[in-house]
């Protein structure tokens, strides 16, 4: 039995960052909005309180705030010919659940993409020639340019109160900021965070090598901040418990700390937690999603919620799942190259870091903010360096810093140290406070054989197929990782450490066990061509004009940058198109 509810003006699937932003913009435009969140309601006051918010085992290791793999996971195979198996325990990536979504337990790294990341394919073809891009690299342009999106990046940074320092203010390059970034109209809303010892060492080494060190933009408040919504965030305590944790000080930007207070106070918004959206009710003829069906997880009862507009703001995998199940768009086929749904799934080429050890320096890794609390360089990011003859495209941001010193997971020891016993104890005690890592986050460019579809065997708790990921690293990724590893080694040596590890080389298959990044992207990509993309530049589905898809599932490929800044900017960009154009004039915003 499905209970059919009274129609609402709009429904948001998922109440994380994008769901909250869209709900806020639509209610401000006068619409009645229901927010359906599969998980529980979580508030900073109740759920992120001292002292239990600092429980490393509960949050970082047993993963309390993440999606419960017992109920829902994805399956993986490395090539289209293999049988996929479910990822039974989350490891490589950690999607969120519950009100706030992953926005409650992220680190706070808030980038803008480089202008050349926005028009990637055209840029690479212009600079290196029409035939420079290998056929298997199915990279595309974002249909929205950096300049078009700049005001929306700005708006999201102001909502979050991002701490940082501009490196390109209206075209003027500023030393100490990121001189490679696209022109910004405004300085960051909050000044940079305090400097860590690791950051100071990195800055010196990078300058000596002629690079351009800068402070990574952080949604961790260097000082208390009141955002344009009138919500005040507290100052960061440098507790070293950002990633995987909520913030008791409301000093890390999250839906809870930035926007939910005003949204929940608005009568036009109704939050329904424990409401697990099961399927979209799609009218193929009318090209509309008429309703969404969801299960109340407290009772098991099923509801159908008709809605005038549907905002799909779940995580990448559920965005794909719901559209694939409803058949909104054609499933991508790697053999023919036809179909757009599931195409260009990308990840992040990370994990090739170098750990440096200093006998005479105290690092205090436990005093840290989450967002790469140190110093970055972008000299080897995107197309900021000449790729002629390198055999790969793209790059990585490189950072040295400390995000935490929680010892269950952070205990660096020099290479060659045994993993246990007396020698392990000695080395651990000796080096814990004298080491940090230089890390890199590499872009991951779309590959013809990397894609998402539905698993034929394994199912989730609602009886739906799992999303099946066909994914592996390919030549571009391995070469990129090798090259960046070389740079990391060079920086490490310039620091003149007592000991250092060798740059980790990326070889072999993608491994789901060690954490790498929760930057899964693609499958419902945005583009200018309805044949090769799923949503248009306003994130409106080509095949359902009242369906708007949020989040990193719309990325055509993954830049090196953590996706949240772009996700937030695109959410505001789409929200404006809906409120200023679509509400008055429903229908496709771009003619296909």
């Amino acid at each position, binding site marked *: 039995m499905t209970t059919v509810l009274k129609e609402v003006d709009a429904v948001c699937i998922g109440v994380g960052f994008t769901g909250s932003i869209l709900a806020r913009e639509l209610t401000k435009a006068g619409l009645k909005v229901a927010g359906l969140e599969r998980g529980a309601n979580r508030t900073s006051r109740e759920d992120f309180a*001292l*002292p*239990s918010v*600092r*429980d*490393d*085992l509960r949050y970082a*290791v*047993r*993963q309390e705030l*993440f999606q*419960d*793999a*017992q109920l829902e996971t994805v399956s993986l195979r490395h090539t289209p010919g293999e049988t996929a*198996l*479910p*990822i*039974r*325990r*989350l*490891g490589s990536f950690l999607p969120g659940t519950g009100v706030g979504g992953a926005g409650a337990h992220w680190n706070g790294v808030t980038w803008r993409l480089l202008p050349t990341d926005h028009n990637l394919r055209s840029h690479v073809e212009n600079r290196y020639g029409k035939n420079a891009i290998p056929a298997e690299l199915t990279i595309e342009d974002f249909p929205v340019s950096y300049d078009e999106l700049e005001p929306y990046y700005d708006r999201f940074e102001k909502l979050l109160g991002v701490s940082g320092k501009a490196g390109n203010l209206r075209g003027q390059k500023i030393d100490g900021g990121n001189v490679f970034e696209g022109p910004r109209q405004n300085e960051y809303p909050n000044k940079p965070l*305090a*400097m*860590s*010892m690791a950051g100071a060492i990195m800055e010196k080494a990078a300058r000596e090598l002629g690079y351009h060190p800068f402070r990574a933009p952080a949604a961790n408040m260097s000082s208390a901040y009141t955002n344009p919504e009138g919500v005040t965030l507290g*100052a*960061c*305590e*440098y*507790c*070293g*418990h950002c990633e995987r944790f909520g913030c008791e000080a409301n000093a890390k930007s999250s839906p809870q700390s930035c926007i939910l207070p005003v949204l929940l106070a608005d009568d036009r918004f109704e939050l329904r937690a424990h409401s697990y959206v099961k399927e979209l009710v799609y009218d193929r003829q009318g090209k509309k999603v008429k309703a969404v069906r969801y299960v109340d997880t407290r009772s098991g009862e099923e509801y159908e919620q008709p809605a005038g507009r549907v905002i799909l703001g779940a995580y990448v995998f559920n965005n794909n799942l719901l559209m694939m199940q409803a058949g909104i768009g054609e499933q991508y086929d790697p053999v023919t190259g036809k179909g757009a749904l599931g195409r260009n799934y990308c990840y992040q080429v990370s994990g090739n870091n170098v750990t440096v050890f200093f006998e005479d*320096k*105290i690092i*205090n890794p*436990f*005093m840290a903010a989450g967002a790469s609390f140190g110093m970055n360089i972008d000299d080897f990011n995107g197309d900021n360096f000449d790729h002629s003859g390198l055999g790969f495209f793209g790059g990585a941001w490189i950072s040295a810093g400390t995000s935490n*010193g*929680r*010892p*269950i997971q952070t*205990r660096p020891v020099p290479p060659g140290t045994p*993993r*246990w*016993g*007396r020698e392990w*104890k*000695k080395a651990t*005690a000796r080096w*814990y*406070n004298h080491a940090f890592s230089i890390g890199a986050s590499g872009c991951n460019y779309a590959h013809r054989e990397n894609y998402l579809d539905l698993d034929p*065997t*394994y*199912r989730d708790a609602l009886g739906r197929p799992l999303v099946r990921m066909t994914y592996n690293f390919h030549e571009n990724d391995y070469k990129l990782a090798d090259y960046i590893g070389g740079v990391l080694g060079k920086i490490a040596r310039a620091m003149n450490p007592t000991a250092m590890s060798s740059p980790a080389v990326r070889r*072999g*298959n*993608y*491994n*789901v*066990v060690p954490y790498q990044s929760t930057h899964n992207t693609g499958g419902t990509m945005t583009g200018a061509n309805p044949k090769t993309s799923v949503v248009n530049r306003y994130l409106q589905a080509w095949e359902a004009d009242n369906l708007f898809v949020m989040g990193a599932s719309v990325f055509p490929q993954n830049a090196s940058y953590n996706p949240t800044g772009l996700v937030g900017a695109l959410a505001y960009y789409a929200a404006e198109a809906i409120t200023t154009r679509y509400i008055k004039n429903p229908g496709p915003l771009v003619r296909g």
Partner: protein
Amino acid sequence: MVDETIPRRGFLKGAIVGTAALATAGPAPAEAQTTASASAAQTSPDAEPLLTLTATEHAFIVAAVDTIIPADELSPSGSACGVATFIDRQLAGAYGMGARLYRQGPFPKAKPELGYQLSLNPREFFRAGIESANAWTRKTYGKDFDRLSVTERETALRAIEDGKAPFPGFSSRMFFDALLQITMEGFFADPIYGGNRDMAGWKMVGYPGLPATYREDIKTYFGKKYDKPPRSIADFA
């Protein structure tokens, strides 16, 4: 041959008095571990009642965590720090019962990059792993793991770590990795879970624990050793 007529658990209890002083008197000298006969009983002051481990399993865990974390000037032994208690409680609770673990079949053999693919929950996995480890040491040394000398335990554990001890079903390396992971959790997690007793793990590395509010300290202690004693969740309860 091991005298199976001595019930292990009773045997442990009888020996506790002698070692309890060691645990409370602070870090034991390095020689204490090596000179002591290697019986699990004498390295374990762990008198906590068991929730799920059998006496044999507990003896194995005590011996294993004391080999991974031997007593020395840096900390008491793993079991003296409550790590065996921690493991017993974790395996008895939600984690042991398979929380957050997708358990729908089929369960075919898989390459290691696809992660854990067995139908066993962690409690069942440790049961099987301990059984296999003891069977292997009985075959190799004529004794259960906990009855081995300190040196033999180290050699045996290294073979298990390297995947050189043939286990039925899954590799001994996989078992060792899980054992090492849960041991480290028990040594470094907040003491509310029964391990990291007296914050011994935190003291060993200099981790200050809670409340971790460093807005001023981050400037004061730039490049300087943070000298305040650690505190844990219970100190704020």
